[in-house]
């Protein structure tokens, strides 16, 4: 017989001090707010409490409050996380909590950043292009084993935490030459879709900057969907680039027989 969920009925609170970054593109500073935290509360609940009771104009982006939409990304005690999935009791007890916006993207206000670059990057990636349907009703025959990997990549909620943490973007600001882990993985997802007939390998090398990635795996570590961004997506794509462009036999082969579509 299964047991009942834990939790005592009365819900006592404890006081926690929050340092929340307030400001905009011109600059800003941390402001301190005290919050009475009850059992089960997540960081986003505390931010909402501050917003409703102490700072009506505190800007924060969120939607689902269940880790499904990827809107509430922020840096909590310096760690890139979803605010709605970070329970207060997983943070060190008795200490202040800092909440600041993702630092790799321009600030709009308070915890809200301008992530529009990501949408522009995606638009430049060649879209899905399926082969002709296998069956008369317009459907395809595909087996679960053939789509497991693609489905792993399709779990991405576009929280952009991996983009936030990647040093190529964060420290070296290569936004014009490097599409970042989210979109390297997105490209891998399209390339590995069994129905797709497009070839994006040259783009990966020439426009997407896959060579900048040193496979340090910081992106994989912060992904709330636990997608194997580096091992399952980026490394296989790096191998394809090598195979298609640096392997002498493949190159010879390419000269005579362009990739079929």
């Amino acid at each position, binding site marked *: *017989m299964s047991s009942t969920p834990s939790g005592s009925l009365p819900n006592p609170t404890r006081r926690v001090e929050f340092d929340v970054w307030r400001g905009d593109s011109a600059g800003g500073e941390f402001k301190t707010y005290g919050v009475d935290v009850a059992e089960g509360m997540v960081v986003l609940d505390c931010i909402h409490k501050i917003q409703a009771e102490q700072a009506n104009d505190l800007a924060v982006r969120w939607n689902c409050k269940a880790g499904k939409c990827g809107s509430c990304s922020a840096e909590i005690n310096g760690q890139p996380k979803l605010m709605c999935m970070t329970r207060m009791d997983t943070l060190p007890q008795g200490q202040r909590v800092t909440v600041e916006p993702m630092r790799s993207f321009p600030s709009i206000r308070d915890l809200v950043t301008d992530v529009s670059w990501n949408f522009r990057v995606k638009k430049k990636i060649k879209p899905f292009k399926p082969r002709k349907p296998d069956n008369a*009703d317009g459907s395809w*025959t595909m087996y679960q084993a053939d789509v497991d990997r693609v489905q792993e990549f399709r779990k991405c909620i576009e929280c952009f935490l991996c983009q936030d943490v990647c040093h190529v973007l964060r420290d070296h600001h290569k936004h014009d030459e490097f599409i970042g882990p989210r979109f390297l993985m997105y490209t891998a997802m399209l390339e590995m879709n069994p129905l797709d007939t497009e070839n994006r390998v040259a783009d990966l090398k020439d426009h997407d900057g896959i060579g900048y990635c040193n496979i340090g795996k910081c992106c994989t570590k912060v992904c709330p969907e636990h997608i194997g961004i580096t091992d399952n997506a980026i490394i296989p794509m790096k191998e394809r680039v090598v195979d298609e462009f640096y392997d002498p036999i493949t190159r010879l082969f390419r000269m005579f027989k362009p990739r079929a579509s």
Partner: protein
Amino acid sequence: MNIAERCTIHEHDVVVIGAGGAGLRAAIEASAAGVSVGVICKSLLGKAHTVMAEGGMAAAMGNVDDRDNWEVHFTDTMRGGQYLNNPIMAERHAREAPARVRELESWGAVFDRTKDGKILQRNFGGHRYPRLAHVGDRTGLELIRTLQDHGIHQGMEVFMEMTVVALLKSGGRIAGAFGYDRERGRLHLWKAKAVILATGGLGKAFRITSNSWEGTGDGQSLAYHAGAELLDMEFVQFHPTGMVWPPSVRGILVTEGVRGEGGVLRNSEGKRFMFDDVPEAYRAQVATDEEEGWRYVCGDKNALRPPELLTRDHVARCINREVKAGRGSPHGGVYLDIGWIKEKIPNASEHIKRKLPSMYHQFKQLAGVDITTERMEVGPTTHYSMGGVAVDGETQESCVPGLFAAGEVGAGLHGANRLGGNSLSDLIVFGKLAGEHAAKFAKSHTPAEVDSAEVEAQARALEAPFERSGSENPFAVHYALQDVMQDLVGIVRTQSEMEQALGKIAELNARHAKVAVSGHREYNPGWHTAVDVHCMLTISEAITRCALERKESRGAQFREDYPQKTAECGTFNLIAKKAADGSMEVRRRAVVPTSAAQKALIEKLK
């Protein structure tokens, strides 16, 4: 005034308000027809409420059980809606859903597969056969991402994080929309020949809800104030299984997929109480004992479904009854147990994690409960609005020429109760239809003139909270409204409580007129809430007035003072419309008649 000085002006043939499944599907269709399309949404692209949908989308493809076809889906939908549905819409939906789902695959969606390589389908409440195409328990993400990734290459212009606060009309027909961007607080005017509302639901008017902040009934309210009719507003679906503990997650949805995969409901005495009360209309379709219910879950075609898979209205009321009778769980819910299937199958824990990954994470991370070994505590949560903008079943056009609606903001398909999975399919079937007809409308009309005085008035109303010195807090007004709706117009309704609710809504309207906001215009949540509350007040009044007028219990509406369904009430739908004096009037309209062929089907598949 000179509008161009105050607002950024945009011009499109068709403007779509909303970028959930319905809005994106409509925008894709209109773009394909060759007209210029603008899409406006309150949050970032890909974040709309649709992203949260879990269990799947209903389409009678017959991939898992070849006895399924559109006729069965049509009759299931009508029975679930207690025959208040628009049968024209219900038939189109059942016929077209399979093609719309397959089309998603051609745009890159990757559904779970059957052993023979087709799209896998799962059981859901009220559907006779396994019918829901799905991707684990993140089907909504798959739907919205597919439409987004396809849509961005079709030429539409997307306006993210902008809120429409009014529809503009000229000579009786639609002329455009007016709103502001959340980022900077600047004013915007979209001129359009046709407008498609695809703004989703209204759950945020209630305290306990599965909806995100966007579900504030904007589209229903915009349409109402523009003179359109609202239909069936009394039918608000309370999903039986929302999380109840801890308090901060109260209301977050626990997908019906848990029950579809074998999850059972028990009270504090350990009893599977759903066997106690099976409604007459479903008796011939429900398992007689637990063993048969399990065989059904495993795909035995001769077995009947377990009672946990009855329609949502019924399951929600049974849970309510158990809790009220003192047989609830410690935090006021009942138990939902999926871990028990380990008695039946090997590797149950892995199976659960693979089939219900986001449920596993949701409980593990938010409640500290491991659903593979522990029971969940669940209770009803405000989930979906069957009611919405009344539309023509052939075109999705409202009674305002040039104004269309699709998705949850629309009404007609679901009648008194929606079956799970019928919303995602609704979005793609009727999103497409709306896009097609809005484009057609735009092609056959010249642009209407926007009245600058009207824009000026709207701008003043929008900015008024900044100028007031009053002290009314917009969040406080919102919370008060949520309490009124939850406590007085919730799962169990009575005349006296609803009359009380109307009084309180009037008081809250007065308080709302005094709401003041401070600070800057950029991304100011206090201001945004002030705007949203206006919409929620409007639709709350409509829900309450219609619920009062329907003196019976049917589908999602349960009246303690009229606990029975009546034949007379089955003959009409209710319409709420703004009267000439500005007050809300509610009147009856005969249901759309079922054709002889449809009647015969319903009879045959009873």
